[in-house]
């Protein structure tokens, strides 16, 4: 996979624009429950975590699928579904620890994030930069500078720090 959807939960304010952008782009409906990215909100503690498909290397959803509709795309590394085979049994939803599989109430199938074919809608609308769509090199760069900052004790000052 050469591009990643990076989630920085520290920057997320739980505004929900990503959910709306996703739902409108994918289903045409302005309903957050139809989105493929969902924010876990804990208002009292101020924890907001956007959760979506992580496109795991050996995805547990694929092994749980009763109809073998979930596969890894060899070209992009994404976890993709053959939706006409899906019977909506929700086994993949139970196997996924990241809430990456969401039930599409309109088509009665389970869907996951597909990075909108390389131009994710949620990233465009994220006002705080909590969601970013960057290449592997950039992602590793961020990891490195964040780790360096942690080790130097200057967390929070370096670009891309995720605390």
């Amino acid at each position, binding site marked *: 996979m050469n591009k990643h959807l990076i989630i920085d*939960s*520290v920057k997320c304010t739980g505004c929900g624009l990503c959910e709306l952008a996703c739902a409108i782009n994918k289903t045409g409906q302005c309903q957050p429950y139809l989105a493929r990215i969902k924010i*876990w909100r*804990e208002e009292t*503690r*101020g*924890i907001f*975590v956007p*959760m979506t498909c992580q496109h795991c290397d050996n995805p547990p959803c694929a*092994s*749980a*699928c*009763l*109809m*073998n509709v979930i596969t890894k795309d060899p070209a992009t590394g994404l976890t993709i579904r053959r939706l*006409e*085979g899906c*019977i*909506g*049994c*929700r*086994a993949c*939803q*139970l*196997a*996924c*620890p*990241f*809430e990456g599989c969401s*039930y599409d109430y309109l088509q009665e199938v389970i869907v996951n994030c597909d990075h909108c074919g390389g131009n994710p809608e949620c990233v465009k609308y994220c006002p705080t930069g909590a969601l970013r769509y960057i290449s592997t090199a950039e992602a590793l760069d961020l990891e490195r500078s964040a780790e360096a900052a942690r080790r130097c004790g200057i967390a929070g000052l370096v670009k891309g720090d995720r*605390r």
Partner: protein
Amino acid sequence: MKNIVIIGNGAAANSAAETIRKHDLEVPIVMVARENLPEYSACALPDCLSGWVDRSQLFIKQLTDYPQMGIQTRFGLEIKQIDTRERILISDQETIAYDQLILATGSRAIIPPVPGRDLLGNFVVKTVGDIDAILAYKARKVVVVGSGNIGIEVAEALQISGCQVTIVELMEAILPRIFDQEPAGRISRILSDRGIQVLTGERVLKISGDQRVETVTTDCRSIACDTVIWAAGVKQNVEVASAAGVKLGELGGIEVNSRMQTNIDGIYACGDCIESIDMLTGYPTLSLLWPNAKRQGQIAALNCLGQEMAYEGAVSLVAEDIYGITAVSMGLISRALAREEIRVLEGQDNELYWRVLVMDDRIIGMQTIGMSYGLGAVMALMKNRTPLSEFHRVAADPDLARRVAWYLPAQRFLQE
């Protein structure tokens, strides 16, 4: 060149074949199976009865997919004997030589020895052929014997398609291997509300009728019906293997080690026909579930190719759709833990009911009725054997919690 022969064409067999092909593009693969059909999903068979899933949708592969993947098929062939010294498989029509053999023979539905069980109108639900037979029979009044997941799904499917359905279960609650009594009672109430008669604690004594099924007699009553569907359990297809000297375990499945090897060199086994180790207890178990079979197929294939890979153990995960209400069971149930000390965390929130079983401060099972966020997180905590005290400590600290934020939805189920 060495070849690999796979007996079977179910979840385990196909996942083994696909894994071999993914890692080795050249090794010849031969698949042998009794049914002359491409791979289909056995789990969706009841959905096909109700018409929710089209018959053609059941098939995961087409027959032409096999040659495309470089797999030779010998479908419609029943292996009668395995010669482990010469390494050949013997059937009535031909013999097939193998260098390495993967047994994925699966299981078959059993009909207990009850008088009248060969009358017209007795069915099981295990193969596409069974479904075709039931659809062609045009049932009106049906008795489903046994209430495992297949029994419940078939009862629901037939009720939806307009039949009058009665479920007869020997144990005191329905779904005895999958749910505890309390959630089973709730599911039972959903079924009764829709007009399915649920009889528990009753044993079927005989089936009577003139050529066709007319009455089912249990130890409490007799029920007039025209169809009996047996969902009373399965038996592992191990006869041919066991005659060839493959060792069986005490539960009746083929005994394998964690690399899916049997006691005979060059023979691997996976899927319904084996006894695997339960991930949570470490005891042997017969796991008859699709995801476990697929994983075992992968492990057998990798070891067959010489990559050492150990199976992490089987874990049960069952999702039932009962009239649009999702009922989920994962891990173990309290009946399986009768001799252990367990704690039960139970709760109800509007339409959602949950029950978490905790042993030694670790989640060992969970059952819910109604779908919710956070079930995947509980499953992950259960598989990781995370102590609950540790989970609560991390979840209570905002900085730590943020680092494992995907576990937070599990909190609501794990409050004391």
